[in-house]
């Protein structure tokens, strides 16, 4: 905000509308918890006091898809759970992003069998993959920061083309 310094104490800031919108989206992105398995413990500990995710805007985790922006798929998704996951993803209002947390959500992890999806991107489109089994809370926070950078780089043109 270099303009602010030049204008002194007038309290005026100029920015672009896109910058404004993206900044507001990143500063209060509420995740929808989809903690299925062991990665959910790390997600909980990332939200708790020692590795606080509220510093980054995720003040609370909404259990309802209608009130959330970000879906963190933490854990392995079985074939029976796939339609449920897709339905919840469809119920989230736009704009929405998805983090695939952990190895099982990214690529199937250690499970290569008849019952587990090899990567949750067979069910929902994923923006950021966080590796680890389970990823440390700092790794999850790094994944969240990567989503923020992606959001800050979005433009209205992309949205217009998506919904043409």
């Amino acid at each position, binding site marked *: 905000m270099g303009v602010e310094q030049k204008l002194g104490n007038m309290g005026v800031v100029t920015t672009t509308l896109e910058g404004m919108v993206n900044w507001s989206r990143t500063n209060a992105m509420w995740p929808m918890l989809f903690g299925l398995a062991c990665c959910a413990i790390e997600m909980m500990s990332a939200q708790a006091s020692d590795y606080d995710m509220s510093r980054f805007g995720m003040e609370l985790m909404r259990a309802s898809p209608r009130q959330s922006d970000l879906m963190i798929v933490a854990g392995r998704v079985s074939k*029976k759970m796939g339609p449920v996951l897709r339905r919840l993803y469809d119920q989230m209002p736009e704009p929405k992003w998805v983090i695939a947390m952990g190895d099982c959500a990214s690529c*199937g992890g250690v499970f*290569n*069998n008849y*019952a587990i999806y090899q*990567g949750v991107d*067979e069910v929902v489109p994923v923006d950021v993959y966080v590796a680890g089994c389970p990823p440390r809370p700092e790794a999850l926070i790094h994944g969240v920061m990567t989503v923020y950078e992606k959001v800050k780089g979005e433009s209205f043109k992309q949205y217009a083309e998506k919904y043409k």
Partner: protein
Amino acid sequence: MDKKLEPIVKAVQDKFSATYEEFRDEVHLFLKPEQIIEALFLLRDEYNFELLSALTATDYWPQTTPRFHVIYQLTSLEKNLSVQIRVPVNGDSPKVPTATGVYGVANWRERELLDMFGIEVEGHPDPRRILMPEDHEGHPLRKDYPLGYEEPQFTFNFDEIDLRKPYAKE
């Protein structure tokens, strides 16, 4: 064999002309599918084997007759004994009468048999798949079901796997 188990095994052997095998203090009795319900009633009522610990099956493919062995493991809590009943079943259309009349826990165990092995259970009150989704074809725990789902990705075959993978649309 445990001393207390000997008369019980002898009684079952005489009544159903069954053979048995022993392995490290475990007794396996071999019965025919028609004799199961009677044997279960006998063991439950007279000899107090009140707990059906396990109801599973094993697959001995590529040997086709008998391909499956359906296993009933009965435990008596007061006497601290357990006995196992094995029922050899053929591979082409395996059928077993239901044990839900004897033990209520057999309901879900037989649904698991149906789902994982394809062994039909006659007279079952709720024959649905229990572990896999309803429209899944195939029976996963048979020996001729493929073991893995996707081949491991290395750098040399990553692009081929990437083309075949069913990515989700928006």
